[in-house]
Structure formats: structure tokens, C-alpha cells
């Protein structure tokens, strides 16, 4: 009997994890450069586990008119220097810090094709199509775009950042970088799809819950009550 309870627990727990993934997607409907996670159930030999994959599909690109906004119009990630090492992001909502370095909204320096931070000290700083950073009309640097051998070794870190956990040679520069200036990439979360996933996981949960209750009250309960009757 305990097997059925364990199966029930796993069935419910896995659906709860799926819902947590969906909820996080929904919470990030408006996060620039966010990539949807899709949870899936994986059947292993003895149990059921949940895995999450990152859906790398491009989000819609929206024109903002802001000189320091840049959207990746194709594959690739910006490289940013963080205290923990180089991280990768699709969020091109950039700013300048007080010393004129091009930074993300949380102050991490964005790297150029030469792998160094970009200092754009000047009064008219803009990012042009192709990721070219100009100061008063003069080109000073180009934003670095990298791609990865596979997405499975790419882990999320929060704050729109990804960390590469694979071998160092798995990170390459994008051959044909495509970037749009004065635009941002919206989150690629599709609310319709997420609602469907939410409903599916919720109903699955309900079914498993019903079966656990049936096993408990109808079978186990009766077993104990009927068999235990001595007279």
C-alpha cells in the first residue's frame, strides 16, 4: 500500500514544481530579455522527476528610442563582468555609471569584442545598430556577443544573468552579431501557453490527489475496518 502513497506524493510534488516554474514565468512577463523556463516530467527508473529547460526563442523587439537600449536580433548573449566572473545576459537595457562605463541596470560592466569593459566618457553616448558604441558620433567599441555550444550547461543566476558551467571552449563569439540600437527585447513568456501549462499541471495534481484520497479512505480505511472486525 505504501507504494501507492509514495507514487501519489511524487505525482503531486512534481506538479507543484511545474506550477512553480510556470509562476516564475508569469512573474517575469515584463522582464526585459527574460527567457521562459519550461518544466517537463522525466520518467526515471523508480520515480518521476522534473526538469527545466530554457526556451531560447527570441522575444519581441520593441523600439524605445532610448540611446542606451540595445536588443539582440538573433542568437547570442551580452557578456558582463560581475564580481563572480563573466556572466551572460540578453537584457540590453544599459546605463552609464559615474565614470562613464557602460553597465547593466545593476551596475555590472558590459564587455566589448576585445573582452574589456567599455568606457564611453562623453556627452552623447549611444548604441547603434550592430552594437557599436559611439561617443559624440565616434565609434569607441562594439558590444561582445557570445553563443554557447549547448544550453544545458547554461544556468540561471537571477538578475537576468546566466552562468556558463561547461568547458571554457564551449563559449564562442557570434560570427554575425545582429543588434538593434534604441530597442529592447521583451520577455519571451507567452501568457496563453503558461496558462495552459498552469491548468494542465493543476488538473493533474487534482487527479493524483483524488486517487490518493480514494486509496486512503476506500481501500486502506476499509481494509483496516473490515478485516479488523473480530465478530
Amino acid at each position, binding site marked *: 500500500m505504501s507504494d501507492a502513497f509514495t507514487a501519489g506524493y511524487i505525482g*503531486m510534488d512534481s506538479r*507543484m*514544481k511545474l*506550477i*512553480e*516554474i*510556470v*509562476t*516564475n*514565468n*508569469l*512573474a*517575469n*512577463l*515584463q*522582464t*526585459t530579455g527574460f527567457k521562459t*523556463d519550461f518544466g517537463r516530467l*522525466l520518467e526515471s*527508473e523508480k520515480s518521476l*522527476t*522534473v*526538469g*527545466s529547460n530554457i526556451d531560447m526563442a527570441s522575444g519581441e523587439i520593441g523600439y*524605445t*528610442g*532610448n540611446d*542606451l537600449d540595445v536588443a539582440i536580433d538573433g542568437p547570442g548573449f551580452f557578456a558582463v563582468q560581475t564580481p563572480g566572473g563573466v556572466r551572460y545576459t540578453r*537584457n540590453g537595457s544599459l*546605463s*552609464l555609471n*559615474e565614470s*562613464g562605463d557602460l553597465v547593466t*541596470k*545593476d551596475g555590472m560592466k558590459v564587455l566589448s569584442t576585445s573582452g574589456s569593459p567599455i568606457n564611453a*566618457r562623453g*556627452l*552623447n*553616448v549611444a548604441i547603434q545598430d550592430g552594437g557599436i558604441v559611439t561617443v559624440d558620433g565616434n565609434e569607441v567599441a562594439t558590444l561582445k556577443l557570445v553563443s554557447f555550444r549547448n544550453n*544545458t*550547461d547554461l*544556468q*540561471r*543566476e*537571477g*538578475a*537576468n544573468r546566466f552562468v556558463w*558551467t561547461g568547458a571554457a571552449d564551449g563559449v564562442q563569439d557570434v560570427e554575425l552579431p545582429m543588434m538593434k540600437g534604441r530597442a529592447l527585447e521583451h520577455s519571451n513568456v507567452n*501568457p496563453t501557453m*503558461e*496558462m495552459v501549462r*498552469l491548468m494542465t499541471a*493543476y488538473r493533474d*495534481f*487534482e487527479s493524483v*490527489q483524488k486517487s*490518493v*484520497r480514494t486509496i*486512503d*479512505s476506500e481501500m486502506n480505511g476499509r481494509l483496516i475496518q473490515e478485516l479488523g472486525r473480530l465478530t
Partner: protein
Amino acid sequence: MLRALYTAASGMQAQQINIDTIANNIANVNTTGFKQGRAEFQDLLYQTIRPAGAASSTSTTYPVGLQLGLGTRQVATDRIFTQGDFRQTENPFDLTIAGKGFFQVKLPSGETGYTRDGSLHPSADGILVTSSGDPLEPQVTLPANWDTFTIGKDGTVSASVAGVNQTVGNLQLANFANPAGLEAVGGNLLKVTTASGDAVTGAPGENGTGQIFQGMLENSNVSVVEEMVNMIIAQRAYEVNSRAVKAADDMLSQINNLTR
């Protein structure tokens, strides 16, 4: 399960802030020199339940990991410094900056404020002040009994008294390495912060600043259509997150009903 509740709540909270920002933009659709604000979001931390590549048996690994995100948070309200439309007013005291740059204003506290609002007025002593009465910096004083008053594109202020034209002052504009880092203090005023960098001042047209046009004002750069669309999106995003809260709550209640 409680994770989903908090995650969805963070999404709802973010949309609330988004609506607050949008509402402020819409409220300032007629504010001279107003610059649109934009709420920016980031995903929160991730809880790595199982990293990709963890062993699934002695010789095989899971090709995908399991990371549960914990929601979203607001990271900044960006200010978008695009040019607003010009509005012809024919009032000689109305000025507009075509390009970057800010008028400098001496605040009662002695600090310098920066504004794009060029709606000026002469005070009782002939000093050019903003609508809230703060004098421009450097101060410009009009002579008594002036007949006409002009401000050139380069900021030269001249007035004619009894048919004699004389230069009475020069306007200066300030520019910043990072205007988005300026702090809005209300009253159309911005203040310098460490993030904005120090002000670089110069005559209009120098140091990347724009030229001055007299008899015009700069409208707010808020686009009502864009804000309405943003409002719809924000409201729907709020709604969808509240559905997730409901689903999580229902599941918790079902767990509670497992034993009767």
C-alpha cells in the same frame, strides 16, 4: 508550494509598481519638459534543485537540470530623455532646448537644480526665474523699462531700452555623462547624483548641448497611446499572476483535504 505563492506575489507587486510608473507618466502628459519614466524588471534568484549533468545512474547524467525561479523584482525606473514635441507659444519668456542639456536653477537651499522646463518669468527685480520662482544660474537680470527682449540660439540675452540694444547676460546649459542617473525631486527639477556624473556646463550648442529657441516650450515626451498599451499589458500581467496565486491556493487547500 509556498514558493509559487511568493513568486506570483512578486509578479503582482512588480506590476503594481509598473502601473504606478505609468500613472505618473500619464498624469504628466501636459507637464512642460517632463521625461517619461520606465519601470525595469529583473528575474529574482533561482533555486537549483538539481543541476544539469547530475548523475542519474552510475554511468549516465541528467541532460537537463531543475532550477526554480523565485519571481521578479524591480531594478530601476529609467528616465527616457528623448526630445519632446515643441509647442509654439509666442511668449518671449518661453524657451526650449533643441537637443540635450538642462537649464540650471538656483534652489532656495543653495543647491543647483536642473530642468528642461524653459517656462520663465521676470521677477519683480527683473531676474529671470522659473515658474516656481527659482532664479536661473548664471543669474540674468533684465534692465528696468525694457521694450523688447530676445534670447539667441547660443543663449545670449539682449534687451533694448529706449531703442538701444544691449546684452544683459548669457544663458548656460548643463549636460551629464549619464542623464538617466539624475534624481527627480519634483517640480520639474532634477538633481545631480554620483551616478549622473558632474554637470558639464557651456553655452547652448557647446559640450553636446542643444540650441535654445525662444517663444516655444517642450512638451512632455510621454506618448499617451504607448502608456495606454503599457497599462493594458501591466493590468493583464497582474491578472495572470493573481490566477497563479489562486491555483497555488487551491492546491494547498486540496492538500489539506487529503485526510478527512
